[in-house]
């Protein structure tokens, strides 16, 4: 095996090795997201997003129709603004309700969209006005205990 062939093979080896490191850093470690599915954007603001993460699915009737693209806090209203990318061929009515749900007890958090009866459809960049926040179990339990205690107090 002559020297230039060895150089070539070592070059290929080092190149794909660094390619693998880049893959681990960019694709697995998420320094860069490559998403090229055609679609349009919708926004919704929630009081509490619970455990919602970037790229979480957006589902309508249980079918995935899009992904969460960005989550940020509105510094004025202290609400979370969630931007979603929805598949191009799925349109939602203006009175659609967006809610944050969890699939199963330990499953991932997703956004559910329930379309209403309006005839006007939401366009790219528009806001979903009717939203329902994530259910925080600690709050539910706290509420339950508080109600119990006040019931017990009322009976005495």
């Amino acid at each position, binding site marked *: *095996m002559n*020297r230039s062939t*060895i*150089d070539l*093979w*070592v070059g*290929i*080896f*080092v190149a*794909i*090795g*660094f390619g*693998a*490191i880049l*893959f*681990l*850093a960019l*694709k*697995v*470690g*998420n*320094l860069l*997201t490559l998403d090229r599915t055609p679609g349009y954007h919708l926004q919704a603001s929630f009081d509490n997003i619970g455990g919602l*993460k*970037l*790229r*979480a*699915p957006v589902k309508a009737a249980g079918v*995935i129709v899009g*992904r969460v693209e960005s989550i940020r806090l509105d510094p004025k209203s202290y609400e979370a603004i969630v931007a979603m990318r929805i598949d191009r061929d799925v349109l939602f009515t203006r009175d659609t309700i967006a809610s944050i749900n969890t*699939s*199963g*007890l*330990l*499953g*991932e958090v997703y956004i559910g969209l329930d379309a209403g009866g309006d005839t006007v459809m939401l366009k790219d960049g528009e806001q979903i006005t009717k939203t329902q926040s994530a259910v925080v179990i600690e709050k539910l339990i706290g509420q339950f205990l508080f109600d119990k205690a006040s019931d017990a107090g009322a009976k005495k």
Partner: protein
Amino acid sequence: MAIEALGDLGQGLRRLGGAVTGGIAWLGYAARFMVAIIWHSPAAFRRLHLTLREIYFSGVLSLVIILTSGLFVGMVLSLQGYEVLVRYGADEQLGILVALSLVKELGPVLAGLLFASRAGSAITAEIGLMKATEQLSAMEMMAVDPIARVVAPRFWAGVISMPLLAALFSALGIFGAYLIGVRILGVDAGAFWGQMQAGVKVWPDVSNGIIKSLVFGTAVSLIAVLDGYDAKPTAEGVSSATTRTVVVSSLAILALDFVLTVFMFRGIGS
């Protein structure tokens, strides 16, 4: 009777003591050898084609076994992980399970073990045979330092190849997990990648894996060249040196992995 037993005990103790001091002396020799390699490295790097040739032999020729093993380890991990996760309805977490276990543990450790048995043994056998056929002595006669000409290029080739091989192992493993998990078992592709990207951090997760593989590469290469250089110049000596390389470097990888993991958990964790 009692005196005989005492004599046996004395023999046993002497042997134990001999093994301990022998082990410590070996460690000292290894450290001295490492310093000698680093001392002679500039001379070795001046003739870069020697190192490139060794990267070809230990890195490029290990590619097939590393890539295949990575793919299959990823596929098996995916099947087994899915089996448990789906019981709790958490099969979307498959991506992060596979990626974290590959990038932080399995990639560096398994690639290191494969590297030790594929490339480390070959290095030991080659250097040991060079010694047995007195090629190393011949080099010294011609005023060529065998550490600069033979040992250092092989050592550095191992140190350079190992992180690249471990990264390839992890990448192929994640691809294998994707094939099984998403294509066959039907985990949602977006959740697979999304959960993975939400859970794996470049620093410290990916970088810890690279640090581990660098340390393993150094340890395996040092043990391989040292065992070859230190081998008894007979056929039997070379064969036992080759065996020792595989055994000692596998144990070293597992022990170092534990130590490094403890450091990384305590240090940059959380």
